[in-house]
């Protein structure tokens, strides 16, 4: 099977990020790593595209970021850890509902024709 191109992912990336963050708080790199893992290597996306999505979701109040503690035992730049807010949880539920409806309606058409 061919990899899922980034054009096909466009429009779903926010939902995917919200969904990953729904499992717990994590930093951007970890979000990406989990997306790749769950996508079984079939998600072809430019890694940089994650950060504008995170910033947009944060501006919308769906996620909240905080800089990792200065005392964290690691070298290098600080990492920003994101978590879902109450508004994000509601948004994720709404997006999941929309996704289910999307699949329910489109799937029979794609599978069996109109």
């Amino acid at each position, binding site marked *: 099977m061919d990899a899922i191109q980034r054009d096909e992912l466009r429009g779903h990336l926010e939902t995917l990020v919200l969904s990953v963050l729904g499992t717990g708080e994590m930093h951007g790199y970890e979000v990406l790593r989990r997306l790749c893992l769950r996508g079984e290597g079939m998600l072809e996306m430019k890694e940089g595209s994650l950060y504008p999505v995170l910033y947009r979701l944060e*501006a919308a109040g769906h996620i909240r970021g905080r800089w990792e503690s200065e005392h964290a035992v690691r070298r290098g730049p600080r990492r920003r850890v994101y978590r879902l807010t109450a508004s994000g949880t509601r948004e994720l539920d709404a997006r999941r509902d929309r996704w289910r409806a999307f699949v329910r309606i489109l799937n029979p058409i794609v599978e069996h024709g109109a």
Partner: protein
Amino acid sequence: MNTLHTFVDGLVGPIVASPLRKRGMREELLGHLRETTAEGEAAGLSPGAAASAAIARLGEPSALRQSLQDSVPGVERWLFWSMIARRDEESDLRYAARLTSFLGSILLVVMLMPVVAGVLAAGLFRGYDAAVAVLLKVLPILMTGFVFASLIIFVAQWLDLRMQRCIAAQRRLASVLHGLLFVASISILCHAMANAMLHVVRDTFLHGLQADVYLATLGIAMLCLVGVSVDGWHRWQRARGAA
């Protein structure tokens, strides 16, 4: 790691946003690139190849820059575009003049605050005539000070821009010379501001604050000096790393 620094600086530098937001973007992207580079090195790539691969995985720089720019809230973008961001092909002099108009308007507000306080206090406790008297005494000093301060700010801004160019070109002597002139102009400004503030507070009902005002102004001057030195040193190291 200088490759990563240079790449991230080039990517985030032109984005129109607050310095705080840009710093956050820089730090986050740099952290990401470092983790990806470490991953590449662990897979057997040389440090240089791992860094290049990490940068390539991030995506096309101009498209990424545009996405990052789009993620900046509109109000912030407007504020920093119209006031602070450097436009394409803008000369140092023109840019310095525009920055001066922005900083000058902030300065005017800061300078007017004690006057407003003095006039309000005079008006409340002694009546309308006392308030007018305070205004007549203070406004000429304030306006002269404002014009003088704007001129110095303009010169300081222009020197700062020249210093940055010299640092980027690795011209050590010219960088230090421009830096010293910059610090001298800021010192003159702070001294003049402190004196003007002293006049203002002396002519109003804020006598008790004289020493505090002077100390606060000196404190700002010292902070400026330390800030310029640290920033200059930091830029110099970056320029050396990039060279």
